[in-house]
């Protein structure tokens, strides 16, 4: 089950403390055509809320924040040549990194899909 941040990242537990991280479908829609994503180095460590990486679309360049603390164990190399995968399938094939969480309890602070959708409605007012 995916959990979401207010800054529009998603995180999903694969097994144990291992998670996949990406940006929400809403985020990709807001960004428009994505032209570049910098992939974080495998092995680098982040605290929750740190800038994980940056993403560029035809409209703007934005930071992507680490939804949980931990170490990057894999990056979706396919995105280097085909960043448009994020536009096509942000919450599936468009995953950005795999991380090993250092504090799984952080997941409790994040929103469920329903909560995130409600958050989006409120944000758009």
């Amino acid at each position, binding site marked *: 089950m995916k959990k979401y941040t207010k800054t529009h990242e998603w995180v999903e537990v694969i097994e144990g403390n291992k998670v996949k991280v990406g940006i929400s479908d809403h985020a990709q829609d807001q960004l428009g055509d994505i*032209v*570049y994503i910098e992939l974080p180095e495998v092995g680098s460590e982040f605290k929750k809320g740190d800038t994980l990486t940056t993403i*560029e679309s035809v409209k703007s360049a934005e930071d992507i924040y680490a939804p949980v603390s931990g170490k990057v164990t894999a990056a979706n190399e396919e995105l280097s040549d085909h960043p448009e995968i994020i536009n096509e399938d942000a919450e599936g094939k468009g995953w950005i990194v795999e991380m090993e969480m250092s504090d799984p309890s952080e997941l409790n602070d994040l929103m469920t899909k329903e909560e995130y959708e409600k958050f989006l409605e409120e944000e*758009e007012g």
Partner: protein
Amino acid sequence: MTIFERSKKGRRAYSFPEYDVPEVDLKIPEHLMRSEKAELPEVYEVDVVRHYTELEAKNYSVDRGFYPLGSCTMKYNPKLNEDMSALFRWLHPYQPEETIQGALKLMYELKEMLMEITGTDDMTLVPSAGAHGELTGMLIIRAYHLDRKDYKRSKVIVPDSAHGTNPASAAMAGFKVVELKSSDEGLVDLKELEKELDETTAAIMLTNPNTLGYFERDILKIAEMAHEAGALLYYDGANLNAIMGRARPGDMGFDVVHLNLHKTFSTPHGMGGPGSGPIGVKEELREFLPVPVVRKDGDRYYLDYDLPKSIGMVRSFYGNFGVLVKAYTYILTMGRDGLKMASDMAVLNANYLKKLLSEFYPIAYDKDGKRACMHEFVADGTKLLKETGVKTLDVAKALLDRGFHAPTVYFPLIVHEALMIEPTETESKETLEAFANALKEIVEEAKKNPQSLKEAPKNTPVRRLDEATASRKPIVKWSRK
């Protein structure tokens, strides 16, 4: 079609008469000779003229029509500026100083006038353009802190409404960038600023009026807070056209003041320059200016390279001199009152256009459409997108079909469907009204037939470009098939 594709073997634009003197062997060493043919285009003179005239006709410029590109100050540039600039075309940068006294005098007097306009104590005219000036300014700030042996100053505060070049220039100069969230009025939030300001803050970079077109009315307080924390205040000159001759960044408390001569002081610009980005500084920073600085000794003008604490040279020679001549001409022909009137009219034009648009297009950070703006304002297409599915991008393309250059889109980033409009002082009431009518027509079309706007532009030399592919797989060089 490129000029290369027009080439036909053997065609010449000009043929030299046959030799009537014996050929001389210059004995050019083999390694200096080219091994492949240059393969320059072979065309008649008329082909060259028609080719470039055709390209010119396809181009859009401020000489052709209204160009309300927000934050770019696309004002009309008097042709006299060009004529004056051409007078200097035979100068060479390696000429001895005593043979270029007139050029140095012009630079010196321009510097003095710009210092008067900005309220600064010294200035470099060397930086080649806006972002280059920004980097120069940030390097001066860095040198200042290091010279005071204040090694903790590692971060620069930049509002979330800033031009993208601000964080980029600060990062290039080695600083960590901290983004400052704007208040719900679209201004610097003093509480947020207080939280970020500390003994590690090197500078705050501000644009005033900011990119939403609003004046930072707390600027004196902001300067006081910055200086109390030991930080410097940097002025992004992109929007100087709003206050030129009326208010001086130096008096507001800015320590480093950046200018875009090519915008505010009238030089044709955009997409490659040449530009000019002088940096004015307060007394305590003058020793860090890049070299050379133009100085006067009695009746003699000279280039001063003797600044031991200078950040060094930031480019070859002395700056884009042609642009300096244009700015000098512009200031002298406008005069003190003319410059004031230019900024007055820039602000009046923006407010008039904003009023026309606010009847049918929401304005960012302005709920009832009554807030006064400075030289530009940001229209917000969020509502239009929600109601019709028509994006700001579609609106911009539809404006091209109606003979206007599009405003700046999707900037500043804090307005999602931003349409940033800066009419400048050189446009007539009729032009502003024609533009407002075109935009109104587009909004009505969006409600009736949104699909037609998705297909815009239809009347331009090329239709909608595939920006995503252009960014993902750019082809930057023509190659022979």
